[in-house]
């Protein structure tokens, strides 16, 4: 399917979702230090506008009494029940839910942001992410 040109790279402020109506559906696009990501603006849990949630990292599974923070900048927390999803693959973190937010492939071509509507598992413009950053 032909990708949709959704603007210049500089049209997207870092760390802030822009929600676009594309093909009749809402897709949130965000530029982070790890690249561009695009997700459907619907939480699989109860349909909340997930892109209005906070983008950050989260606490990684750890031993009792210890805290480890990681996945900085690629965890999207739904503004309703606080379910957390990875931006790079849409999956709920650490097996907390079966559902996932739908992600779309983004390509940068000549400074233009190209959105591929067919659901994709990851954003190709980003390098693989480490599970943990201590």
């Amino acid at each position: 399917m032909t990708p949709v040109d959704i603007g210049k790279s500089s049209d997207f402020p870092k760390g802030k979702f822009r929600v676009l109506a594309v093909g009749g559906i809402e897709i949130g696009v965000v530029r982070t230090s790890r690249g561009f990501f695009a997700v459907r603006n619907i939480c699989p849990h109860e349909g909340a506008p997930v892109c209005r949630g906070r983008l950050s990292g989260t606490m990684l599974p750890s031993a009792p009494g210890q805290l480890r923070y990681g996945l900085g900048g690629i965890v999207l927390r739904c503004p309703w029940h606080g379910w957390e999803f990875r931006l790079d693959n849409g999956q709920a973190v650490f097996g907390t839910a079966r559902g996932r937010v739908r992600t779309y492939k983004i390509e940068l071509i000549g400074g233009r942001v190209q959105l591929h509507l067919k659901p994709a598992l990851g954003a190709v413009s980003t390098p693989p992410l480490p599970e943990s950053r201590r």
Partner: protein
Amino acid sequence: MQTVDATLEREASLVRDAKEYSIVDCDVHPLATDGLNSVYPYMSRAWRRRFSEKGATVQSPLNVRFSHPTGAIRPDATTPSGRTGGSEPEFMREDLLERFGIAYAILSGLEPARFAVGLAGPDESTSLCSAFNDYFIEEWLSVDKRFRYVICVSPQDPEKAAQEVRRHANTRGVVGVYLPPMNILMGNRHHYPIYKAAQRAGLPIFFHVTGAEIIYQGAPVASGGWPESYAERRMAFYQVGEANLASLVFTGVFERFPELKFVFAESGFTWAVPHSWRMDATWQMFRAETPWVKRPPSEYIRERVGFTTQPLEGPIGDSAGLNKIIEMLGEETLLFATDYPHFDQDNPDWILRGLSAETKAKIFSRNAHRFFRLD
């Protein structure tokens, strides 16, 4: 594009499905738009001075131990003017009533409720509850005819609380009496003046935790010991509902006040199934100890108690299992609620999908009319 179209069609059908019902949202929380400044015009100058000189605020300080890890109010419910979600009636109309097709929204104020159970003294809380009641009735119910309100009363002074019930017995838009849970169980005779007034007014008693539980003196404590985190404390909220329901049954409140109904809001309902089994079994064995309990406890509950659906819980991925629980509890006892604007709001377009149209009509709408005078 076929995938996208099919998805859109499916979602549109879900939306149409929920909006077919005249939805009654039985648990909605307004906040005073400008905190106590909004409420001060509804109390005497002396009381206003009392609170302002104390530096009183609607913010109930929570210790780090139990504060919500990420904020209890939905960030996407923030109003266009930047106020906290739930603090502007005009935006609530748009963001709740219009967006989800709500026919009636029953408002309950948690700010006066926390004062009522422990954050203010008996006289202070009585004054604050009255002022909050007048404020919400005057400034919120007038904004949209779909808003209804449960007046909040202070259980610290049950006689004054009964007076407040009588004062609003015929106030347009008032549909119930919010009795915030304190550290005296609801079956205790301490509360009977309130029940007498509510029964006479034809108003149900509305039960809802206030957020003061397990933190403030005067509020309910946790059974077994002191929790360590918000998560643990959230689990303990159900204990408050369980203890109060058993108290109402075995003290004979349902017999003493044969017309009075109770709505347990945001208290869960799945627990009420095994809880009823245990109460029935206990009654079979020990009926003679409380001979005023004349019928199996589960019968009183089915007839006189409503449970709001939010936060909807059940076996994950097993809607048939949830439906079975609803059937066992009695579908006539369930009342739909969103809990707007809180973080764990339920979406009427997404929940209860596996139920029959008849059952959904009861839960989304019809049952609420059995408890609240809405029209």
